[in-house]
């Protein structure tokens, strides 16, 4: 279910002109006690708009008003002040709810029903025909990795499995607006990645996603725009690009260059900077490093290997493909292409397993040992590197020392993860 997101250079222009799906204006919610006295100002004068096809994040610490905003959007609470429109209608308008899917922050499912029954029940609330329900149930259960445990009641599920079935029920109606409250809460890293991929896929299909979370990585990975809540108020709002970019810095990522080429490039850069900055500052402001793989990518890689040797698990298995009815045409094409590539790749037994950056927010792959050595030689040595070099024997370079140390650490982490996954034999 790994999906790369297409970059649209005209994204801003198109989204500005796009249909407003959610319009919130001057929204306030005051919780009152039995006697009508104000108890808590959960949301205070909040205004924002969400446009079609956007992944919009509500970000904030616990108790900041994110979930209350979500509940106001869904008509589960009445605003004390302000105005909300969803698809141009009141939040209480019944027919509009046909276009909305909602995953609450907790599992609010019926514990005595199994997965298939749960989806069948919610499907029938959308007046879906029996055949349609069955088709979607099959696809959704496969998508969330619960098709093998479809007859186990929800009460017997782990928290992660409950999140998965909760997500499936939110998508049973192929909604135009998906509201997800802490969707990755309780999920393992694989589940988190799948949910995030799914969100991206939904957005690609023109669906609007509102994501409420306090997990910064989730929001950063998938959201186009975010509002940051604190104390019921919006503290910041805008696209991630606007909020996170540092315009006075530049980062270039590329394949490893020959030493001579790199020297030339660095000399040019330093010469250019030397005209504006003192020499020392010009030297220090240029940093060349090999980006490291982040833990999520590394974990997913380890699990992928472990899964290929492990036969069974009593819990949820990794989800399959996105349900057919939720997939976009682009995605179908991408998947078809992926399958061809997979076939080609599988024919080469010794194909290197180099992690490839799949989407934004994910770090590029690690450099080879040789490339690291080249880079180290080009860059001025840091005091730490210098001392390490002095301490080491003349035969071992600092870069290779670092690389070996890193490899050792990664190996240890890999063993730990394999143990956790019960694949000791896979060390």
């Amino acid at each position, binding site marked *: 279910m790994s999906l790369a997101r297409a970059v649209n250079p005209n994204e801003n222009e198109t989204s500005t002109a796009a249909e407003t799906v959610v319009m919130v204006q001057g929204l306030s919610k005051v919780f009152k006690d039995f006697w009508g006295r104000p108890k808590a100002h959960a949301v205070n004068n909040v205004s924002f708009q969400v446009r079609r096809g956007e992944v919009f994040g509500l970000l904030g610490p616990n108790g900041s008003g994110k979930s209350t905003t979500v509940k106001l959007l869904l008509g589960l609470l009445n605003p004390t002040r302000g105005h909300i429109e969803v698809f141009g209608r009141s939040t209480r308008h019944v027919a509009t709810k046909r276009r909305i899917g909602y995953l609450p922050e907790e599992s609010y499912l*019926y514990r005595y029903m199994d997965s298939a029954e749960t989806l069948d029940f919610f499907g029938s609330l959308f*007046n879906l025909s029996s055949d349609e329900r069955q088709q979607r149930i099959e696809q959704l259960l496969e998508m969330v990795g619960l098709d093998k445990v479809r007859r186990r009641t929800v009460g017997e599920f782990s928290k992660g499995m409950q999140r998965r079935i909760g997500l499936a*029920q939110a998508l049973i109606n192929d909604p135009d607006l998906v509201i997800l409250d802490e969707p990755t809460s309780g999920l393992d890293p694989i589940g988190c990645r799948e949910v995030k991929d799914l969100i991206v896929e939904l957005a690609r299909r023109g669906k609007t996603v509102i994501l409420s979370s306090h997990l910064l990585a989730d929001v950063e990975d998938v959201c186009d725009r975010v509002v940051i809540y604190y104390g019921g108020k919006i503290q910041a709002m805008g696209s991630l690009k606007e909020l996170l970019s540092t315009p006075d810095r530049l980062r270039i990522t590329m394949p490893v260059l020959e030493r001579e080429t790199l020297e030339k490039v660095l000399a040019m850069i330093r010469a250019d900077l030397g005209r504006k900055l003192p020499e020392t500052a010009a030297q220090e402001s240029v940093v060349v490093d090999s980006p490291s793989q982040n833990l999520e990518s590394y974990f997913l890689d380890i699990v992928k290997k472990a899964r290929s040797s492990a036969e069974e698990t009593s819990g949820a298995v990794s989800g399959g493909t996105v349900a057919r009815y939720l997939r976009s045409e682009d995605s179908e094409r991408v998947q078809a292409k992926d399958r061809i590539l997979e076939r080609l790749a599988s024919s080469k037994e010794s194909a290197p397993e180099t992690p490839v950056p799949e989407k934004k927010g994910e770090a590029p792959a690690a450099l080879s040992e040789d490339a690291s050595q080249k880079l180290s030689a080009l860059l001025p040595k840091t005091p730490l590197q210098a001392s390490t070099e002095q301490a080491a024997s003349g035969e071992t370079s600092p870069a290779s020392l670092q690389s070996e140390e890193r490899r050792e650490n990664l190996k240890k982490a890999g063993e730990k993860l394999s143990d956790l996954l019960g694949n000791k034999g896979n060390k």
Partner: protein
Amino acid sequence: MKQILAIAKLTLKAAFRFKIVALLSLFLVVSVTALPLLIKDDGTARGFIQILLTYSMGLTVTTLGLATLWLSCGILARDIEDCRIQLMVVKPVARWKIWMGKWLGILILNAMLLGGVGMVIYGLLEYRGGRLNEDQKFVLENEVFVARGSAKEAAIDLTETVEEIFQDRMRQSSLQDVDHAQLKKQIFEMLKHQFQLVPQGMMREWDIPLGVNPAKLRDKPLYLRTKFIAMSHNSTFDDTRTFPMFWEVGPMDSPQSWRVVMPMTPNVFHEIEVPPNLLDENGHLQVRFINNQNETFYFDVNEGMEVLYREGGFLANYLKGLLILFCWLALLAAIGLSASSFLSFPVASFFAVSVLILGLSTGTMSQVIEEGGITGVDHETGKVEERGVIDHISVFFFKELKKLTEVVLDFSPVELLSEGRTVTWWMVCKAIVQIVILVGGVFVALGVYCFSKRELALPSGGQG
């Protein structure tokens, strides 16, 4: 409708999977089966079967009634408190449909339980009845396992006589200051009392129109259901002795008239089997009582004489009786759901049980209305002498509540079944309209309104 049915199905699933149905069914079947071992009857097979029927159905209705209240309070309140309702209301289903779906689910559950236990009771009655001797079977089949219609004498019209006596009194004495309406009422009561008395050596005749084609009752026995009070010489009631009562049934002076002397005790109902084919050409039955005792007998206009005749079989009658019981359960479900629409589960349960107790306190209501209040009742007069605001409010409240209660409790299917009387379709329709549509409708409207307005995601679990 699909959505309502889906929610009803969900409610049923909950009841089955939490083993509520299994437990209730087991309890009811065991209770109903074990009941005959515990009950005391009058020694006759007829009495035993009547008591068995009354107790079994009473137990079933009480158990199912309380279970319905508990379940209906819990099924919605728990969903709200545990936030499960949030996932339902964010779907394109109107809140009234959710409410009605829950109600329908409880109704289907009640129908299943009542139907199941009803069939067990019916089977037990048939089994018990089948083991009796032929004479007892005959009595049962004609007096209990039957649907009998009933007819009474037309209401007496004393208006003209009252007016004549009133005018006569007015001429005789100056009664200008007297309340005329009150005086007429007193004259009416006096005449009515005299009309109900049968002194020594006198005869009382009842001309009872059966209202059915006499051909339909050809060769079928009729039953006189009568009750009297013996008034001894010192004008006190005496119900310890047995009197040989002389009855004549059939057209006056007809050779076909049937005569019988029956030993009877006062103050209890007696049924006298009358041979067939004694109706006149208009379908009327004349019944005469000749008082040849040294006593005066009192026959109440309402309860003194009634003719019962076979209309149909017991099973259909029994099912109609169950339908009326089901109407009561439907109302209880509406009360429970209505309470849980705006209250938490414990408070809703308390509220619903309070409503039930209040509704069944008709005796207390009548007493308060009669005494004119609830404070400072004078023990000698039995009235509240100085009525305050509270008394006025309580009397008004209880009067209205009594009217409402009477609309609901104006049916006695168990009593009718045990007496082998017909539960008419009219009664069933009336029960549906009065209990379910009118009174139940008030609770449904209240519940749906509160549920529709309620904020379902409040931090305290949604209690408004």
